[in-house]
């Protein structure tokens, strides 16, 4: 079983550029060459990781409305060494060319929103892994955007000329960046949804195998009858219940005993949870079909990720 909070969400499912749009301004307007993209990645990684780790020490007793100012101030302090190091590594010309897009990284959503809704409700060791994958996800997307835009717009990669039949100079502009990221996000989501649909089909088989192991029935392979599919749904409901009843932030895996206990409880309560589970599955599919990151929230104060 996987953890309820998947610590690798930040890499693909909640990728900050292509899935949730939590931080797109520097990628759209500034990531026009590989070197500038790498400078953005460096400053973003340094500021985000340092600020998130330090801000964790701020007492939660302070109201969030005020606490958020401390987060931003700490991020601005972290920006000082990050900026100086970026100048040494990438050269002053690249840092100057990045303009306002490096300093604005201090107000990124990873620091201002994700900390409250996700990172600070996790144990520290999980938080570190979670932040790591979010940062890697952004860095990969930003670097790839810079690489492709430089190649397509000027026929160069990291300044070196590459033979290309035609160039699209408009990709260096802001509107070119919007279009590139928008189309990239659509394709990224398309691939994600396709893979997810296939994974779900495979998961049915896996669930069946696990079910068979847990309850002593062999149902794997071939066409499944209505009754067998019902059992699969009950099994999934049992897994969900077992996950909810255990503190999954503290444990990596559920034991078969946990699942079996929940399974027996569900069976003894009747099979209505089977249909409930089916409804939930349908709702999940609908939501994620349109906007995979909507699970991370939208409307209220606790759910305002994607804002920077």
């Amino acid at each position, binding site marked *: 079983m996987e953890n309820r909070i998947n610590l690798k969400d930040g890499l693909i499912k909640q990728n900050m550029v292509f899935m949730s749009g939590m931080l797109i301004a520097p990628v759209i307007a500034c990531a026009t060459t590989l070197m500038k993209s790498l400078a953005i990645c460096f400053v973003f990684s340094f500021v985000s990781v340092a600020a998130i780790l330090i801000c964790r020490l701020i007492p939660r007793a302070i109201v969030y409305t005020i606490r958020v100012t401390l987060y931003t*101030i700490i991020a*601005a302090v972290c920006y000082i060494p990050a900026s100086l190091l970026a100048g040494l590594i990438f050269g002053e010309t690249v840092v100057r060319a990045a*303009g*306002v897009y490096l300093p604005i990284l201090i107000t990124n959503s990873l620091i201002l929103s994700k900390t409250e809704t996700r990172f600070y409700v996790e144990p520290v060791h999980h938080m570190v892994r979670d932040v790591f994958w979010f940062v890697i996800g952004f860095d990969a997307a930003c670097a790839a955007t810079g690489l492709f835009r430089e190649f397509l717009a000027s026929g160069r990669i990291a300044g070196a000329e590459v033979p290309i039949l035609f160039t699209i100079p408009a990709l260096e502009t802001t*509107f070119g960046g*919007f279009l590139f990221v928008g189309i990239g996000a*659509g394709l990224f989501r398309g691939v994600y949804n396709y893979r997810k649909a296939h994974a779900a089909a495979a998961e049915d088989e896996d669930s069946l195998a696990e079910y068979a192991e847990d309850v002593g029935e062999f149902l794997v392979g071939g066409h499944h009858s209505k009754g067998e599919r019902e059992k699969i749904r009950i099994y999934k409901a049992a897994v969900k219940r077992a996950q909810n009843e255990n503190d999954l932030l503290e444990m990596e895996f559920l034991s078969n005993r946990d699942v079996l206990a929940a399974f027996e409880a569900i069976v003894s309560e009747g099979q209505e949870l089977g249909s409930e589970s089916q409804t939930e599955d349908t709702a999940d599919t609908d939501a994620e079909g349109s906007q995979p990151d909507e699970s991370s929230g939208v409307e209220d104060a606790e759910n*305002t990720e994607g804002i920077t």
Partner: protein
Amino acid sequence: MDIFLSIVSAALASIFLQNLVLERALGANVLLYASRKKEHVVGFAVAITYTTTIASPFIWTLDRLLGDFEYYSVFMPLLYVLTVSVIYIVTLVLIWRFFPTLFKSLRKYVHLSVFNSSVIGALFLYSQQGNDLFAYIGYGFGTGIGFVLAAYLLYAAADRLNSSLVPAAFRGYPIMIVYVGILSLALYAFTGYSTSAV
């Protein structure tokens, strides 16, 4: 009269020629969030306009006093964030004291409308342009109005962009970004287009 013209011309430039969202992509993700509800469009626009306008004289003073310092550019984010934080806290306290009902409705997202890349980015842009105090104020005001323009254009199209006519993978965020890109392309024309080359 000169003061008035300075403010108006700076405001118009920041609405049409250097629109923060459409020309610079600053606050693009705030725009996506704000455009979901009409009250968010208004709330975010007021907060951004207020913060950038009030902060601009302070930023101008800081730039004049510390602009010659060698490492000023490295410390600018910290100084700007401190300025915005003071304005934010003082304003919140005043609203909480005199308009408690308004405070309750604002507290859900006010921090997001103040601490975001559009506000901080706008202040950096004023600084780079190195104008006089009134131009700073004009830019500050125009930034908020420019945000309203972009947010309203996106809000007006939000239903269609989220409809089932759009392929599932592009529905929502990707198509909205493409749409903003097309708006950006349209606004790009304001910066100057000569037909003599055609």
